[in-house]
C-alpha cells in the first residue's frame, strides 16, 4: 500500500504542534506583557495638564510639604486637590505675569475651576482611604513614587489589586515611621523587616485582606 502521507507531513505536523504551542504561549505572554505594560497601566506615562504643574519644582526645589496642597490627606479618604486660591497664595507675588499661569489666574478671576486630569484613578468599585494609610505609616512615596522628581505627574505603580495586596498581605515590608510618611528622601533601612515588624505591632497594623475592606 502506498504511503498516504508524504514524508514532509512529519515536519509539518511537528511544526504545527510545537509552533501552535509556542504561538499560544507567545500570545498569552504577549497579552500578559501588554496588560502589565504602560500602554494599559499608564505607569510612567506623564499626563498633560491644563497648567504644566511641576511637583519636581514645588516639592523638590521649593520643599513645599505635601499637606500644604493636599490638605485632607490626614483626615479624609480623598487627599484633596488644592483650590485655585492655594495656587494664588504664592502666585500673586511670584511669577504674577507668567503666561504659563494664565489658566490659574483666569480661574481665580472667573471663578471657574481648573480641570485637572486625574492621574491616580481607581475603578468605581474600589474604596481607598488616604487618611488611614498615612496614619498607619505608609509613606506618600511608597505608592506615588518620588514626586519630587516628576516634572509632570505620572503613575508610579499599576494600582492593580495584586499590587495593593503585596502590602496588605505583608505590611511589614513597606511600613515606615510615622514621622517619615511625608518625607521624600526616606530610605528603608537594611533591616526593614525588623523595623516593619516592630511598627506593625506599635501601630496596630492589621493584615486586611477581606473583600469588603476595599469593595462595597
Amino acid at each position: 500500500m502506498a504511503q498516504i502521507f508524504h514524508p514532509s507531513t512529519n515536519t509539518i505536523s511537528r511544526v504545527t504542534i510545537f509552533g501552535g504551542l509556542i504561538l499560544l504561549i507567545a500570545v498569552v505572554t504577549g497579552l500578559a506583557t501588554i496588560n502589565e505594560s504602560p500602554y494599559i497601566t499608564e505607569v510612567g506615562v506623564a499626563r498633560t495638564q491644563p497648567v504644566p504643574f511641576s511637583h519636581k519644582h514645588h516639592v523638590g526645589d521649593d520643599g513645599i510639604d505635601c499637606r500644604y496642597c493636599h490638605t485632607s490627606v490626614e483626615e479624609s479618604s480623598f487627599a484633596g486637590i488644592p483650590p485655585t486660591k492655594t495656587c494664588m497664595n504664592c502666585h500673586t507675588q511670584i511669577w504674577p505675569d507668567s503666561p504659563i499661569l494664565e489658566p490659574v489666574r483666569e480661574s481665580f478671576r472667573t471663578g471657574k475651576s481648573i480641570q485637572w486630569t486625574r492621574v491616580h484613578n481607581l475603578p468605581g468599585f474600589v474604596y481607598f482611604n488616604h487618611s488611614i494609610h498615612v496614619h498607619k505609616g505608609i509613606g506618600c512615596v511608597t505608592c506615588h513614587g518620588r514626586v519630587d522628581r516628576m516634572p509632570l505627574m505620572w503613575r508610579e505603580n499599576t494600582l492593580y489589586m495584586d499590587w495593593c495586596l503585596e502590602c496588605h498581605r505583608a505590611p511589614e515590608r513597606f511600613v515606615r515611621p510615622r514621622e517619615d510618611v511625608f518625607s521624600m528622601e526616606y530610605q528603608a533601612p537594611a533591616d526593614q523587616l525588623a523595623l516593619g515588624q516592630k511598627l506593625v505591632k506599635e501601630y496596630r497594623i492589621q493584615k486586611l485582606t477581606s473583600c469588603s475592606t476595599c469593595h462595597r
Partner: protein
Amino acid sequence: MSNGTESASLPEAAQSTAGGREYWRSLEEFAGTETFKELMDNHLPRHAAAWTSAMDRRDFLKLMGASLALAGVSGCLSPAPAPPDEKIVPYVNQPEEIVPGKPLYFATAIPSEGYGRGVLVESHMGRPTKVEGNPQHPASLGATDAITQASVLGLYDPDRSRVISNAGRVATWDAFFSALNAELESQRVSQGAGLRILTETVTSPTLAAQLQEILRIFPKAKWHQFDGVGGDYVHQGARMAFGQPLETVYRLEEADVIISLDADFLLRSPASLRYAREFINRRRVPGTSSEANRLYMIESTFSLTGSNADHRLAVSPSAIPQLAKTLAARLGVPISAEQPTISPANEKWLGALVKDLQAHRGRSAIIPGEYQPAIVHALAHAMNDALGNIGKTVFYTDPVAVNATNHAESLRELVRDLEENAAQVLIMLGGNPAYTAPADIDFAGHLVTSNFNVHLSLYEDETSALCHWHIPQAHYLESWSDVRAYDGTVTIMQPLIAPLYGGRTAHEILAAVAGQAERSSYEIVRNYWRGQSQAKNFDAAWRTALHDGFIAGTAFSSRNVKPKPASGFDASEPERANSAAAVKAQNQPLLEVIYRPDPAILDGRFANNGWLQELPKPLTKLTWDNAVLMSPATAAKLGLTYQVGGTGGEHGTIYADVVELEYDGRRTRGPGWIVPGHADDCVTIHLGYGRRRAGRVGTNLGFNANALRTLDTLWHGTAIAIRKTGAQYALACTQFHHLMEGRDLVRAGTIDEYHKNPKFLMERKSEKEAPATLYPGYKYDGYAWGMSIDVNACIGCNACVAACHAENNGPVVGKKEVLRGREMHWIRVDRYHRGEPSNPETYYQPVPCMQCENAPCELVCPVGATTHSQDGLNDMVYNRCVGTRYCSNNCPYKVRRFNFFLYSDFKTESLKPLRNPDVTVRSRGVMEKCTYCVQRINQAKIAAEKDDRAVHDGEIETACQQACPTRAIIFGDINDPQSRVSQVKAQPLSYGLLTELNTRPRTTYQAKLRNPNPEIENG
C-alpha cells in the same frame, strides 16, 4: 393568564379549613392549598418565563454568536486602552468646613402633612444624599419614617417641574410677577374681594404671619385650606368638647391601657414616630420592671396600629361612633342618646375592656382616629376626663395648625365662590386639589372658569394643567422656612442645596402678593424670627436654632381644660348624607366604604416616588397599585376570588377580580383584594392612585378613588354598590416572594407565659445542637459583627426598607419586574398572621441578610464573589460576580437579589447626585444583598483606628437601625460581651432562623410577646 394556578373559591376554603400553618402569610398557606405547595416547590424567580420577544431562541443565539465575534474584532481595533481621562475639578475658593470625601450634616425638618419632623441631612460636597432623624427633636427622637427616607428621591426627581408656564407656554418669573401685580392692582380697589388663597395645613409661623399681613392689606380676601390627607376632625371634636380647637398630645409611656378608636397613631399621626417609641418602650419586657401596656383597637380597615394591637374589634365604620357612645356610657359619661344593642361577642369584649380601663384610671388613654367624626373625638375627650387621664396621659395644647378650619367646608365655600365668579384671583400654594378634591364638587371644572389662577407646586400636575400659571415650588430641602411639630416645637428649615430648577417657596410668592417681590425666603423667615426673638444676641440664637434643628422652648405648654358635660355635645351629629337613594337599587349589596390615604404615597403627593411605590404596603404587601380591600367573608359574598400566577417562579402576579364600584351615580373600577381581619360588609380604598399627570413613575397606576368621593363622605361612605365585572387585573404583590415555609420562623407567646417561664418559647421548640464537626471553628479575633431584631418591637412600618434603599443605592425595578418576584429590597418585612382569617393576630419580621458564619451561598460561588470577611461579614464583591445565581439558589433565607436587567438608572443626570458615594451602583448581571452597611462599618473602624482606640458599642448604626422608630434593630460587636447586641442575644427570647441548618446566622431575633387580656383570651 394561562399559567395561573387555579385557586377558585379560596376565601371559603380558608374559612372552613385550618389545615395549614400556625403562622401564615397568605390564605393559601393558612389553608395549605395545592397552589401554595406549588409555589413552595417553584420558589425561585426564573429567567425563561421572561422571554417575550417574537424572535425565537435559535435566531437569538445566531445573532448573539455573530455579535460576540464582532465584539472580539472591535475589541482588537479599540484605539483607547484606558477609559477616557477623568477630570478632577477642585474649588476655586474652598469653603472652610468642607473636607472632600467627608459628609456634612445639617439639621432641618420635613413638613410631613404640614407638621414638622426634625431631620439631619447628610450632604456630600453640597448634595444631600440621605435623611436621618434628629435625635433631639421631639417628633423624631432620631427615627424617620419611609416617606422621610424617600424624600431625597423626591428632591432629585427628574419629573419635577422646571419651568414657569403660562397657559402651557414657558414664561419667566418677571412675567409672572408683573401679571400677578396687574391682577392685584385691580383687587386692591375692591379690598381683595376677589382674592383667594388656597393652602394645605399650615403650621409655619412665618407663613401664618404673611397670610395675616395679606388679609390686612386685602381685608376682603379669603384664605382657604384643603389638605388631601387631613381630616381636621381633631379640631372639630375639640370644639365640640371644649368649645375651642385644641391639639391632643398623648404620653403613651405613662399609659397601661390604650384604646384606639380607629386611630392609626403608630403610622398616621404627626407624632407617630414618638408614639411608636413610647408605645413599644412599654413592651420591651425583659429589663423593664413596669407593667407592659395593652392596646385595644376598634377599627374597620386593618391598619398598622390595629395589627399591633393585643385585641382588635373589626366593625363597620358606622358602628364606631355607636361603640364609642356605648363605651362612654359604661365609663360613666352621661349621654342622652339611647343605647344601641350590641352583639354578645362584642358585649363580652367591651365588658372586659371597660373593666381593664376602670382598673387603670389615670393610667390609660383613649385615642380617637383622625378620620372619625367629631363626636367620636368629643366622646374620647369626655372618657379620658372620666377616667382621670387628662393631665396624666392626655394633654391639651393650643392647635399647632394655624387657623384650624374644617377643610371640607373651606373647599365647599371656595367652589361656591368660583361658581359665582366671586373668586377672581386664586393663588394655590402647594396641594393638588384638582385631583384630591372629591368628584361631586367638580373643583377642576370650576377652576377653569376663574379669571386668574396660579398653582405653586413641585410637579406640573392635574391642577397645574388647568391653571393660567404654574410656578415651580422649591423642595423642602431647597427651602428656607419654618414648621411646627405636633407639640408646637418650631424648626427653622434650612436649605441643603440651591433650588435645582429655580423653584420658589410659598413665602416668596406671598411676599410678592404683599408687594415685596424681591424678598428672599431667608430674609422673610429670619426677619420674622428677629421680630419674635427676645434673645439679646439674635445672631447667636439663630445659629443655635439652625444647628440644633429646633428652637428650644417653643413647644406649647399644656392647657388646663375640662370638657363640657357630654350631654352638651351635639350628639345628633348630622348623619352623613346617605346617598343610598341615588344608587339605583339593583339587588346589589350596598356596602360601606372607607377612604384612607395610601400608606406610602398618601393622597398621591408622592405618586412619582419610585421608592415609595415599590415599598410593599405593610399589610397587603401590594406594590404599585391600590385595590378594593375587603374581608374574606365579604369577598365570598361578592363572589370574588383571585388566582396566583405561580409558574415559572413568577410569584408576584396575582390576578384579582375587578369590581365595579358605584357611589352616588359615579362609577369606577378596581381590583378586589382580600385582607384577613378587615371588617365585614365594608371595603377600604386607598387614595393617591389613578393619577393622570404625576410623572413617569406615578401616572396611570391603580384607580382613582376620588372619582367616587363626595365632600360629605370624604372618609366614610355608607352605600356603595359593588359588582363583579368578570375581568381580572394583575396585581404586584410580594406576599408570595421569598417564601421560607412555616419552619418555626416566628415565635410568639404572651407576657404571662414569659413571666412564668422565660425560656418557654425555646423549650417548646426542638432546638437542635449544632452537628459535630472535625474542623475547628474559625476564630474571629477582632470584631464580630452581629445583629438582633426585636420582633416584639417591630411595628411593620417599612422605615427600615426605605432607609436601606436610600443608603445602599437600591434601584427601582417597576411593576413588571415585581410581578416576576424581582424587587431589590435588601431587607424585607415579612408579615405573618395567626388565627382565623376573620380577625387574625399579626406578626412582622424584618429579614435582612443573616450573615451566616457557615454561609451556604459562599460554598457554591464558582468565582469567589461572595466570601467571608475577618469580621464575620458575608462579603459580596460585585466586580467579581458573573451572575450564576447559585448563591441565591442556595440561600435558605432568600435574601439575595439579582440584577436581571440594568435596574440602576445610569442615564438620568438628575439622579446621579442622589447616590451614596460610598456604595457601588450595581450593574446588570450582578448579585447583591445586605452588607450590614459595610461602608458605615469601615468608616467607623477607620475613625477608631486613627484615634488608636476600638470602635465603641453603638458607634456604628446600620441604616435600618438608625431609621427604626422603635429601635427594634440592634447592631454591634458580639465578641464584646458588654455590647448591647451581645446582651440581647443572651436573653431567653433570642432565637435564630433555620438554625437547624447549621448556618450559624449572625442576625438573630427576639420573640414576640403579646399582652392579651385573659378575660377575652380565655373566653
